[in-house]
């Protein structure tokens, strides 16, 4: 056991896999000698060698296409996209190629690639360093999408993603790289070391994909959330003083529908919380899923707390970011309604 923040846990996952499997290679913009703009690959090139951890041209589409080709050869590429905002130039290679290859070749070829990318706001990154694009990926057949909320999960899920034979988008909420963030930006920052989820085994372990975690048991209502918003939701629940069940989805597609269904059937009330913008966001799918499976158990309309349907405005970071107050207000509404 060691104490790790999320960056260290992610770094450790790649280190473990590079040591375990000679077919694992890690690459992306500035990930080589420098170790990545968020230091996620720090020290890995020095330890594992120039051809196993290396820089790439600034060409996201080329990075993904290269990963696909390497995967077809038989390697297990782990590609970093420097910011999730910059994954869109690679959208065609991800959606039309990585996600479709196994199907169109009837299983002859596939793309066992993992695409790591930091997402989300709360760091004053402005419009193009703050976005949460996960929702569009959950609409793509053949792609798996993961977003951890703490160091322990991050390492176990990343190892599972790297070992996965299907393409995985691994989204890292950059706001919680160094410590959990409950949305109270005006309060002192807390570091991971004070939290049990920073207790991370040095070695190999997996957390299976498509399994949600109940991070707080409760009976009054269910919050479905993931990433940074897990911490915001927990804070809101504590402040509301309500016995709310909080579910960290961890894998966003394919979803863990059973855990979701069981919880909402138990509580009869549901709030969906994510930082991504609202319309056609993952929250919509969660609401659809819940009402399909729990319609007759619902005692109030499902509420969603999300980023607004605008770009992420630099100076209005905290007006955009869905903080605990908004979650609390939504909880109040579902409890009444």
């Amino acid at each position, binding site marked *: 056991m060691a104490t790790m923040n999320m960056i260290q846990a992610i770094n450790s996952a790649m280190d473990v896999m590079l040591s375990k499997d000679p077919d694992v290679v890690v690459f992306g913009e500035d990930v080589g000698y420098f170790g990545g703009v968020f230091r996620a690959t720090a020290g890995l090139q020095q330890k594992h060698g120039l051809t196993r951890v290396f820089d*790439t041209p600034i060409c996201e589409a080329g990075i993904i296409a290269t990963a696909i*080709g390497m995967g077809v050869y038989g390697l297990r590429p782990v590609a970093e996209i420097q910011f999730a905002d910059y994954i869109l130039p690679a959208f065609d290679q991800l959606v039309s190629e990585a996600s479709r290859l196994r*199907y169109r*070749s009837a*299983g002859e070829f596939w793309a066992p690639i993992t695409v790591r990318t930091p997402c989300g706001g709360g760091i004053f990154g402005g419009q193009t360093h703050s976005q949460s694009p996960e929702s569009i990926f959950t609409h793509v057949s053949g792609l798996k999408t993961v977003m951890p909320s703490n160091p322990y999960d991050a390492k176990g899920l990343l190892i599972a993603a790297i070992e996965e034979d299907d393409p995985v988008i691994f989204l890292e909420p950059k706001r919680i790289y160094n410590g959990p963030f409950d949305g109270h930006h005006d309060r002192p920052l807390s570091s991971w070391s004070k939290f049990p989820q920073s207790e991370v085994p040095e070695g190999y372990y997996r957390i299976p994909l498509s399994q949600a975690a109940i991070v707080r048991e409760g009976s009054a209502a269910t919050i479905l959330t993931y990433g940074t918003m897990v911490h915001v939701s927990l804070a809101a629940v504590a402040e509301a003083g309500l016995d709310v069940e909080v579910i960290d989805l961890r894998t966003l597609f*394919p979803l863990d529908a059973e855990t979701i269904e069981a919880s909402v059937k138990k509580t009869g009330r549901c709030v969906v919380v994510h930082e991504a913008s609202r319309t056609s966001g993952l929250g919509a799918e969660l609401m659809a899923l819940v009402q399909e499976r729990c319609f007759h158990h619902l005692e109030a309309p499902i509420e969603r707390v999300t980023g607004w349907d605008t770009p992420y405005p630099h100076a209005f970071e905290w007006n955009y970011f869905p903080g605990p107050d908004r979650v609390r207000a939504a909880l109040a509404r579902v409890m009444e309604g």
Partner: protein
Amino acid sequence: MSKPGSGLSLHIPEPPARPGQPPDFSKLVIPKAGAQPRPPVDVPAAQLRDTPYDLIRVLDESGRAVGEWNPRLDAAVLRKGLRHMMLTRAFDERMLRAQRQGKTSFYIKSTGEEAVSVAQAYALDARDMLFPSYRQQGLLVARDWPIVDMMCQIYNNTGDRLKGRQLPIMYSVKDAGFFSISGNLGTQFPQAVGWAMASAYKHDTRIAAAWVGDGTTAEGDFHHALTFAAVYRAPVVLNVVNNQWAISSYQAFAGGDETTFAARALGYGLPGLRVDGNDFLAVYAATRWAAERARSNHGATLLELFTYRVAPHSTSDDPAKYRPENEAEKWPLGDPIERLKQHLIVAGEWSEERQVALEAEIDEQIRAAQREAEAKGTLGTPPASPRTMFEDVFKDMPWHLHKQRQEAGY
């Protein structure tokens, strides 16, 4: 559209001739066969700044093989090459007819471009990995992949290994080192570079080869492939099949009026060779050069295969709407099958009689294959139960697809 004196004006390219006008290839400069120097395969790319503007040609007007690029292939190999090109063309003709008869929904011929795929397949090793576009069926034919298997895919019948999922001719043949064809143009180009990088990473000896058309060079993936190939010196042969047309768009809409496609290589410090794509020997020799260069760890080469799309783009296309009907006949570089046949005859290795006999033999082979394939059904004869359409989305089927399959009632 320029209004003289009134400032700037927008240039829109136009082909030399449209329907109703006589074909016009007068702007086309065709150097003498044999005049092109063949550099050593390990020459630095910086010393190859003229090759993109030349045209590598081996077969002269009389059919003799001349010059430094003459690969001096055995007559036996050339006869096999002739056979594979003829087989490819006969296969295309048959499948076109099958499409007209409603036995399949769609077909794409490679008529006039058979030397590209067949000679290139010969110049590569059997274990090299191919990342083709939809117009290199000759690669599979040249690797002696069963025609029947290809037909079953085209028919989406019970013999279709791809379970009816793909549009006809979108083959995937792992056992022949032939990558799954994508409907999205150009995506395979940078993927081939990734495969080649992996091969180099593993100290393997296999190289990759990839194909795009002239029109597809405009896609970003073309640039991504060349950039990565240059930066990591990937062992890959990158081919641009310039057949002058992209559906109805003349190659100038990809920049063909401004310079050659081989010249794109210069911008990345890669060798760029421009080849007479209807000259079997030239195509073989240039591809061999690039393959040897790649295999000896000197990196990638860009080849422009200069040819002409004799056939319509696909069975959905009618070229009479946008180019002179008889443009193909006037193509100055002739027909690849005719030219190789001529060469063999001139060399005393072939005769009109043997040609006629071979045609008959191939015709019978194709008919037999077609009978065998059609015994397994044609479009409308489901290759399998619709249950299979929910498979292979993921390695293991997740709950939601189980549920949807149930909902579908399969």
